């Protein structure tokens, strides 16, 4: 018998992201939402994943619940295999040891370029200013496969980012290599609150792979300021499972600082 399951857009993004991580791999984890994705993944699906944080915590087994805002705090770095600093942390990715990188973004364009610096205006006099790269540029430059986690809103999916903070495929095939970035690296998946995207091997364009159960392809594309490529077979993503929601709500974020968001529902 089918039943309806209620969740927030954030919970869906986190659950979806957690399902993408492969066990036994290394992952360079960005600030905020990516931390929670990695926590859920490690708790439910990939106990042998090795997380790395930019201030030099290698392989922590983070304590739950998640302490909001802290990345360098003792909970997040608990039971690390090694403690280093920032120059060494980025050496691990630059030397090619990070299978995955996971980042949030303000804006993303069809080539997976990320803006986290400013919206509107000019760089010197922006309309709205945000935190900037942090370590995002290094993660996107060097990890083999970068996963971007971003809320599905038209203003975030733009034909051209206002500022290119962290490199995707730049302006198309071969551009990363031409710019001097390591061959074979780049954006891999874009996880949103409605859908999952990959990147076409030929054109390097963002490609819709699957949509949340009950959401139409048109609904997804309508909420973007560019038209992505469509995979010949668009898959269906099940909503968050009871287990995913329980771990998120009871163990990771009982105060619901991170997981709150727009209410959604889907057939379980």
């Amino acid at each position: 018998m089918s039943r309806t399951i209620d969740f927030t857009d954030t919970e869906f993004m986190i659950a979806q992201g957690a399902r993408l991580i492969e066990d036994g791999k290394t992952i360079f984890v960005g600030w905020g939402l990516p931390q929670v994705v990695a926590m859920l993944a490690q708790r439910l699906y990939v106990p042998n994943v090795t997380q790395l944080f930019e201030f030099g915590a290698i392989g922590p087994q983070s304590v739950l619940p998640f302490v909001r805002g802290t990345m360098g705090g003792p909970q997040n770095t608990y039971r690390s295999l090694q403690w280093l600093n920032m120059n060494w942390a980025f050496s691990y990715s630059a030397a090619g040891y990070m299978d995955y990188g996971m980042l949030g973004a303000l804006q993303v364009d069809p080539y997976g370029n990320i803006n986290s610096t400013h919206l509107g205006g000019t760089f010197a006099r922006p309309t709205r200013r945000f935190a900037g790269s942090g370590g995002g540029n290094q993660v996107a430059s060097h990890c083999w496969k970068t996963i971007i986690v971003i809320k599905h809103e038209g203003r975030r999916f733009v034909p051209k980012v206002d500022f290119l903070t962290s490199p995707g495929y730049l302006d198309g095939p071969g551009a990363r290599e031409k710019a001097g970035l390591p061959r074979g690296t780049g954006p891999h998946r874009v996880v949103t609150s409605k859908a999952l995207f990959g990147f076409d091997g030929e054109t390097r364009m963002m490609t819709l792979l699957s949509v949340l159960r009950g959401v139409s392809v048109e609904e997804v594309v309508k909420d973007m300021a560019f038209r992505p490529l469509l995979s010949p077979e668009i898959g269906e993503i099940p909503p968050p499972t009871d287990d995913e929601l329980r771990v998120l709500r009871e163990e990771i974020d009982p105060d619901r600082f991170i997981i709150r968001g727009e209410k959604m529902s889907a057939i379980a």
Partner: protein
Amino acid sequence: MTAKEAVSAFVSDGDYIVYDFSSLTRGPQSLIREVIRQRKKELWIGAEFTLHESPLLVGAGCATRIDVGFLGYGNYIGQAVCDGRVKAYEWTNGGLALRILAGARGVPFLPTRDLLGSDNLKVSAARTIMDPYTGDPVCLVPALNPDVFFLHVHQADMFGNARIFGTNLFALEAALASFRVIVSAEEIIDTDEFRKDPMRTTVPYFLVDAVVHAPFGAYPGAMPARYEIDLEHVDRLNAIRTDEQMGKYLAENIYSVADHEEFLDLRVGAKRIRELRRRATIIEGYR
């Protein structure tokens, strides 16, 4: 030395300052508040992983330029950049860390494959050149040699030997690269303790110009294994949006108290301090 003496002796108007870690974890918060209390002017901050430090320093009129790794929390600092009250230069966290490493090694620049293809490279003083060996493009970042480096540590001796337990941003590199180094410490210990376990010395004394004994010096952030983050206080910092709110916060927590000790006594209180110490339950790795 007291924080008042150290900041007065070693920080001048117009200085370039860097610090290790942030307002949330092991940041030198008592030293930053002292800089604000002494109303230093025209500072240029190397803001790698900075959170509440840049809004406070800009809001207090101390800082006018920021090299951005991560530009602090919230609307206040974002608005200050939009209004042109503070000038931001983009480097990224890794870019700043590498510039400090170049400064530490005494070389004029270091090559990296970060920043390539990004707009950060266009708006900063980073340059792309052709690698003379392979002919491929490579990015160069210039060395950074700050005037002052602030570092808050778990333990130091009276000469400035210093120990951090846990991760850091660039503690040793920044101590080497900077012209002056002020260390604040939770605990002052005997030099013999360093000699017994030299693997754990983060910074040796001859890089350090001043040592300040500052228990709870990372407050409102956490000091791993010593005390937890005060999220309530952090929320007050996060909520600052207007100059009026900023002025109120600075008046209440910084200008109206004589020093860090008085701040702890009057604005934090013994009960809160005990509570935050009690909450720090993770000891493994920090002993």
